[in-house]
């Protein structure tokens, strides 16, 4: 017999902290993050028949969230026609020292410089701590794609966060 709707709603409630964290790392601010999570929850429940029972609910909801976010980013870009972020900025002040902890704002700034596809992978693997295989499952791409997107993202982040020093690697 299928899972009851009560148990599915309970699982979704339990997923909210992880979804909020994921949304925060995608959007970079709390209000947009909660809007994204709310849209994700509503879309998931209204399309619950599309969820294949027996598969992971978390992967499916992360997939919905990242699709919604990418749609939003792309439609905003079309409307404004202005790049979201200056891609040529150097390391943020105070982050040049490799020993310094990044502030939340530094982290968001660094993430905002990445292309969307890379930002999603960083949010899944580094922020959420997913295994590559699970991240590939969320994105519906081969695991090798996750590995290469993550490698490019990390090189860019290391350069930005640790300064020019990282480029010698």
């Amino acid at each position: 017999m299928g899972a009851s709707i009560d148990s599915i709603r309970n699982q979704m409630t339990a997923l909210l902290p992880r979804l909020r964290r994921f949304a925060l790392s995608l959007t970079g601010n709390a209000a947009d993050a909660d809007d994204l999570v709310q849209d994700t929850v509503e879309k998931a429940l209204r399309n619950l028949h599309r969820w294949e029972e027996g598969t992971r609910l978390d992967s499916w909801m992360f997939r919905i969230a990242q699709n919604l976010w990418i749609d939003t980013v792309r439609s905003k870009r079309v409307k404004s026609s202005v790049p979201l972020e200056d891609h040529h900025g150097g390391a943020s002040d105070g982050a040049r020292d490799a020993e310094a902890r990044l502030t939340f704002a530094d982290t968001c700034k660094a993430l905002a410089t990445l292309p969307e596809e890379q930002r999603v992978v960083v949010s899944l693997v580094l922020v959420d701590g997913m295994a590559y295989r699970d991240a590939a499952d969320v994105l519906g791409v081969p695991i090798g794609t996750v590995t290469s997107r993550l490698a490019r993202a990390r090189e860019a982040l290391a350069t930005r966060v640790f300064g020019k020093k990282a480029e010698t690697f």
Partner: protein
Amino acid sequence: MTLSKEILMQFVDGELSPSETSRIEAELANDAEARAFVDAQTMLREQFHDAFAPAMEEPIPDRLLAAVANTPVSWRWRLRQRLSQRTGWIWAGLPAAGALALGLVIGVTLNPSNVGPIATLNGTLVAQGALADALNTQLASAAPQGSGPHIGISFRAKDGRNCRTFETDSVAGIACRSDAQWNVAALASSKTESAGTYRMAGSAMPDVIRDAAQAMIAGAPFDAAAERQARDRGWK
């Protein structure tokens, strides 16, 4: 640095097998450049993880809890649930005969109350009443005439249980003996003939049940002596 950046990142992310991990660890001991790369990437991972960690501890805004609690579920999902609630518990007892399940389900009407030959017990289907009595005592080689449950064949299944095919006025199926009861492993409607036609004992077992039995059976059905022996041992 002879190791690739990608493999060092996989190392940092815990993506490598134990043997690959020890190989990288050994190579790192002799490669300062690779060690520095691993340190930087480890720090990067920790910093991104830590920066967003507080979000996990924050109270969830009410509007999100409300969205989870109150957003209506798609009608397609509800329809599917309703259908599977009616038929799903027939699937529950099907071990090897999964492929036949659809065929078994079609045409079956079961009384949802536990009056009749089949009951639910802890989510599984079990035989009860006159059917359970027949399964316990009736020998296929000496089937009584007239109405009431009839036993078809008895056999040992591949999973080691003793199983018997049966037919009542309304259903036909396979029951397998577990410690305390007869679990129904397959079930179908036996009303394949028009109402009023009297079914001969052991006549037309529905094809789906015959096929399911063939899929489950280890060797040949019990002969009269083996059947009697199994009964005398309580079918265990």
